[in-house]
């Protein structure tokens, strides 16, 4: 479903102002786009939010920034909680206690800490059981809310507080976990990666994820101002650079078939364009040997998905 920005501009926000997210936060932009997708697709959502930046900043008691039914649960069990909500909804519907026929999708949102590390087992369980849920992992590549500790989504050689880039150990020495591949391995009907700059691609994919019956999965790159240590207004332009340099390939997986998004670049830009303004990579940029390894890691991931999608 194509989106005409001029027609929808000014529509009432479902995630209202007054929340305490950092100025210029990429996650806030993502949530805006999520609600535009849900409203234009005509699907109502019920949200379970794992602990994380999005949760603590949007629900400072006794206030809430959400205008949809929203539930906060612990770090590890948002997918389990939303599975329960989903079962309860269909049970009440079968008993005739819920009479309206509107389309509802049950959404669980978690950051990369909740999705990649702490909540991985409950995410796996929910995907395997086949609930009618959408799981959204907004990936800002470390535990940003608690002070920038490394997570398994942190990229190679990034400087974090628990894996600092020093003389002996160059930051995080492991590559990032491929959660997209893990989600796809559950045999779910739909999964996609998105980036906040490519809003048309993002909204179309979320609309699809909301309308497909069964468990679906969205992985979004959402730049973090203090954690990536970057200029305040650059969240969206960095998300753009991540796609253009091949750091974040935009792919879709639908019923066993991988699709290469048309928003991906024809020609990759040098990776420095993505790294330069982030101080977490400042020391990496001064080390040509490690930078070369970083590049190889990015390219091999990019080529892997290109190959899966059958793109030359």
């Amino acid at each position, binding site marked *: 479903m194509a989106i005409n920005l001029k027609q929808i*501009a*000014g529509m009432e926000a479902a995630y209202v*102002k007054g929340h305490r997210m950092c*100025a210029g*936060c990429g996650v*806030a932009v993502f949530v*805006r786009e999520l609600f535009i997708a849900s409203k234009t697709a005509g699907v109502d959502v019920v949200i379970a939010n794992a602990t994380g930046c999005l949760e603590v900043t949007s629900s400072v008691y006794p206030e809430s920034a959400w205008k949809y039914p929203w539930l906060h649960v612990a770090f590890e069990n948002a997918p389990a909680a939303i599975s329960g909500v989903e079962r309860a909804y269909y049970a009440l519907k079968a008993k005739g206690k819920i009479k309206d026929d509107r389309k509802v999708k049950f959404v669980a949102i978690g950051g990369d800490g909740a999705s990649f590390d702490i909540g991985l087992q409950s995410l796996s369980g929910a995907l395997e059981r086949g609930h009618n849920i959408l799981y959204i992992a907004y990936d800002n590549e470390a535990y940003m809310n608690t002070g920038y500790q490394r997570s398994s989504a942190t990229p190679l050689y990034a400087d974090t507080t628990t894996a600092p880039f020093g003389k002996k150990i160059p930051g995080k020495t492991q590559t990032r976990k491929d959660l997209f591949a893990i989600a796809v391995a559950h045999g779910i009907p739909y999964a996609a990666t998105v980036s906040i700059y490519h809003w048309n691609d993002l909204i179309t994919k979320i609309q699809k994820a909301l309308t497909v019956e069964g468990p679906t999965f969205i992985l979004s790159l959402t730049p973090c101002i203090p954690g990536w240590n970057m200029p305040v207004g650059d969240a969206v332009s960095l998300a753009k650079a991540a796609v253009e340099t091949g750091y974040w390939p935009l792919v879709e997986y639908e019923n066993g078939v991988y699709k290469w998004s048309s928003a991906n670049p024809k020609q990759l830009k040098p990776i420095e364009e993505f790294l330069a303004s982030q101080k977490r990579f400042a020391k990496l940029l001064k080390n040509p040997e490690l930078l070369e390894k970083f590049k190889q890691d990015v390219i091999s991931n990019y080529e892997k998905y290109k190959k899966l999608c059958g793109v030359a």
Partner: protein
Amino acid sequence: MLKVDKEIVSFSINPGGYAKGGTSLENKTGGWRSFRPVLNKEKCVNCMICWLNCPDDSIVVKDGQMLGFDYDYCKGCSLCSNVCPTKAISMVPEV
């Protein structure tokens, strides 16, 4: 064998906290701002890219026209100014 000497008749669950939706409007975040976005309406083409990207929903839009900013909530992040294709938004220091 385990002996149960008392049957549990009822127990109460702590109901937890709840908040009404959309109440964060009470918290005006405009005070965070050190730079203020200013619109040059002559350059603006009403493409609404700023409206889409504003993390704080602080772009005022009416009937397809970009009218300005909600300074009660704008945190001055300059995202709108950076994404504007016609450079119609400039950031000026708050005095």
